[in-house]
């Protein structure tokens, strides 16, 4: 029984970490007043650029992988890929003041296309049976602490993950502290609530917006990389990432724009995603209903927060609106 629970929790965490990266990134972006519906696309690109980096490194290293480079190269290429994506979004919505919903949806179309095109082409050119496997790199990413296996259930629940899972939690905690306790965080929240007021107070609105969109995008992209390197053990398959990007956006609402709540929320969402595997006697049809639960729960949170009208639990005031200084 205990081992089943430990297995369930560890599976839930592995499912939840990509969502945590995605939602932490999206929270930073939304705090600057930009609803980036392109996050699913950004996560696809984050995944595929990591895959491309890892692929070329594995090819050059020819079986003799340096563990440090095997981690750093995919990580950097993933960050670069998602930065380019979020800068496209940033340039269109911040500088050119385009509609955020339309730009975000276009970015998702574009990003999913980039992911499936390059990932799929690599797989057909070099992979076996239409799938590309980067097992060597993935093994380095998945390396857990050596004593994890000896600690039984505790080891499985807390220490059985690759380093990126801890990175996700660390990032979420740091972002929470920065948003709540520092001058930079206060300024960023001011920009998201009322850019005109922030501007009048001498905050460089444009710089904060670009910073938030860029950093948020890079963090979200790591979620895609984690999914490929840890969850699928380095195997790229087209469309494998599924609707997890949208689930990450749902998690932002569920966490009421707090990355620390997002940590718990991501495990909960991950658990809802896999719980059908652990309940005996469920048919395939009820599994689909269980996959609906994260969205239903999010919807309930959205409704309850809007009914209570507490100021702390509302979306950033200027979310979705572009800012032009000369507008009144």
């Amino acid at each position, binding site marked *: 029984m205990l081992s089943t629970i430990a297995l369930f929790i560890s599976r839930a965490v592995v499912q939840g970490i990509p969502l945590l990266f995605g939602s932490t990134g999206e929270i930073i972006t939304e705090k600057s007043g930009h*609803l980036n519906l392109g996050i699913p696309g950004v996560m696809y690109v984050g995944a595929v650029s990591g895959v491309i980096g890892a692929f070329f490194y594995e090819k050059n290293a020819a079986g003799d992988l340096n563990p440090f480079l095997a981690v750093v190269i995919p990580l950097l290429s993933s960050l670069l890929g998602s930065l380019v994506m979020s800068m496209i979004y940033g340039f269109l919505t911040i500088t050119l003041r385009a509609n955020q919903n339309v730009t975000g949806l276009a970015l998702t179309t574009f990003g*999913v296309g980039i992911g499936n095109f390059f990932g799929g082409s690599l797989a057909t050119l070099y992979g076996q049976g239409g799938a590309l496997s980067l097992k060597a790199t993935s093994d380095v990413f998945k390396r857990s602490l050596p004593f994890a296996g000896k600690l039984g259930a505790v080891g499985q629940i807390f220490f059985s993950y690759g380093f990126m899972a801890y990175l996700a939690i660390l990032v979420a905690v740091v972002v929470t502290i920065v948003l709540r306790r520092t001058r930079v965080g206060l300024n960023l929240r001011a920009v998201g609530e009322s850019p005109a007021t922030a501007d009048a107070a001498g905050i460089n609105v444009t710089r904060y917006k670009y910073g938030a969109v860029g950093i948020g995008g890079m963090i979200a992209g790591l979620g895609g990389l984690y999914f490929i390197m840890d969850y699928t053990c380095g195997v790229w398959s087209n469309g494998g990432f599924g609707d997890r990007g949208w689930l990450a956006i749902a998690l932002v609402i569920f966490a009421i724009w707090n990355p620390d709540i997002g940590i718990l929320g991501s495990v909960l969402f991950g658990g809802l995603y896999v719980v059908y595997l652990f309940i005996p006697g469920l048919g395939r049809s009820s599994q689909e209903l269980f*996959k*609906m639960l994260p969205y239903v729960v999010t919807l309930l949170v959205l409704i309850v927060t*809007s*009914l209570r009208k507490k100021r702390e639990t509302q979306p950033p005031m200027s979310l979705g609106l572009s800012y032009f200084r000369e507008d009144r």
Partner: protein
Amino acid sequence: MSKKLREPLFHIAKRTGIPAWKAWLIRGATIVAALVVCALFVVMVTDLNPLEVYKAMFSGAFGTTRKIWGTAQNTALLLCISLAVTPAFKMRFWNIGAEGQVIAGCIATTACMILFGNKVPSALLILIMAVASVAAGVIWAIIPAIFKATWNTNETLFTLMMNYIAIQFASFLCTVWENPAGSAHIGVINSATKNGWFPDLFGQKYLVNILIVAVLTIAMYVYLKYSKHGYEIAVVGESQNTARYVGMNVKKIIIRTMALSGAICGVAGLIIVGGTDHTLSPESARGHGFTAIMVSWLAKFNPIMMIVTSLLIIFLQRGASQIAQQFRLNEAIADILTGIILFFIIGCEFFIHYEIKRTHKEG
């Protein structure tokens, strides 16, 4: 203050107005520029002659009579969903839940076809399907509208969640009604009797679909431009306070408009299941619910212009799948090209609404 303030070389100002021909000239030039960039991209990754690629795209969309009909029917479907989201957008109600509303319509239609399939004559069945699908679309759209109108719940996020609830419900039903057992697919419904299928018109399978959408397009144009409702939608979109000041019931207008949006999405669901696929899948809406948002926005919410913009998107998709086949590329190239063209068109609106001026040196 020892630091000298540098005067920026340029500054941005809002245009007071721009002649329509100039705006369309900018848009036209943008599309040409976007096509050039797309060609560059294709050449960079594939080493193909871009002219050959565009020729292949053209033949993929319009090469044979059959392909033209396919393009027309796909365009009609995308246009239908774009018409559905338009009144809500004009009101600045960000309904990104068209995908879910269409699926709701699909589900209702499928349910009628399966449950009443062999009990009532086909004509009556189609009538029942129409009523059910419109009702389902309305219900799926009106829930977020009520919450928005009453408690100001964020409609973008609400409708986004409703999409995935509907999609998951569709995959649930696919396993409930699966045929053959274990496939998780419903398969073609009533394939022997063709009960509930739209009839062929002049020997054309999709003509009924296209006619329905054509009527809807004209009706929506008239509704938005010449009716009292259309005027109210425009006022609420510009300023809710103004609308309240002149005595409009904003709450009622929001709910009514979203109901209309959902009803047309329901019709789209009816067209998909009754007139095209004759089956249900979680991908029945084909992502058109999201694409429609871009189609409607690109056309500046003008139903007649939407014919052009939806044709452009469908042309890209069908053309790209043709080049994918012909040159053995990955199908996903369609999404990349669509993305590039959308970025350009989205970006060009800036140059229509704002102008960049040289800052004059003083003194």
